[in-house]
């Protein structure tokens, strides 16, 4: 069974600094997608960034970038120039692709990020 592990329950970063959130996953599939979602106190799940497993190039989205290591099954999120609004729970998620059809999302346990002014 596929699993997603986030080993850091909580992280803290100073405003304007850089922080990296870790995520590892376990799968025997070669084709899948990986995501980072952000959940602020409003509880809205917001997509931060997405990575296709077949792409070697790491995805970037403004201040957010990932380090995708397929062989190591690692998918970390780097937040540069951290802002107070980045404070939230961050979830790593894995989406298997079976026979070309998307399937259910598997979430990690989350990392609570605090941003210190």
């Amino acid at each position, binding site marked *: 069974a596929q699993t997603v592990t986030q080993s850091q329950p909580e992280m803290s970063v100073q405003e304007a600094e850089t922080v990296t959130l870790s995520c590892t996953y376990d799968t025997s599939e070669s084709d899948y997608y990986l995501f980072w979602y952000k959940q602020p106190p409003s509880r809205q*799940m917001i997509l931060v960034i997405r990575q296709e497993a077949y792409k070697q190039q790491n995805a970037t989205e403004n201040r957010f970038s990932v380090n995708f290591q397929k062989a190591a099954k690692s998918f970390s999120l780097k937040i540069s120039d951290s802002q107070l609004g980045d404070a939230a729970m961050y979830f790593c*998620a894995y989406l298997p692709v079976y026979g*070309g059809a998307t399937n259910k999302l598997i979430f990690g346990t989350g990392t609570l990020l605090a941003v210190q002014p």
Partner: protein
Amino acid sequence: SAVISQKPSRDICQRGTSLTIQCQVDSQVTMMFWYRQQPGQSLTLIATANQGSEATYESGFVIDKFPISRPNLTFSTLTVSNMSPEDSSIYLCSVVLGYGSPLHFGNGTRLTVT
């Protein structure tokens, strides 16, 4: 992206009663899902809402407890039946717009059972 409206946003219910949560999407979507997020926990998939047929439930979730309807491609409901305090959670509706696209979520329903 899609605009997903979920109602109610929160509710406080008595033990033994039932609550129906509605999810309305502003466009037709193939796949809709219902997730539960218990306090301080990650998201757990309850079921896939299938249009025109019975929902597909994950292990640990049963239709009698969480009946789901999906009468068309833009609307679904989740009922939490015979509630107990252990059902206190955030319930989230989500949709997939197409192949390889990420899940988009509604704002969630915060349920407290007393």
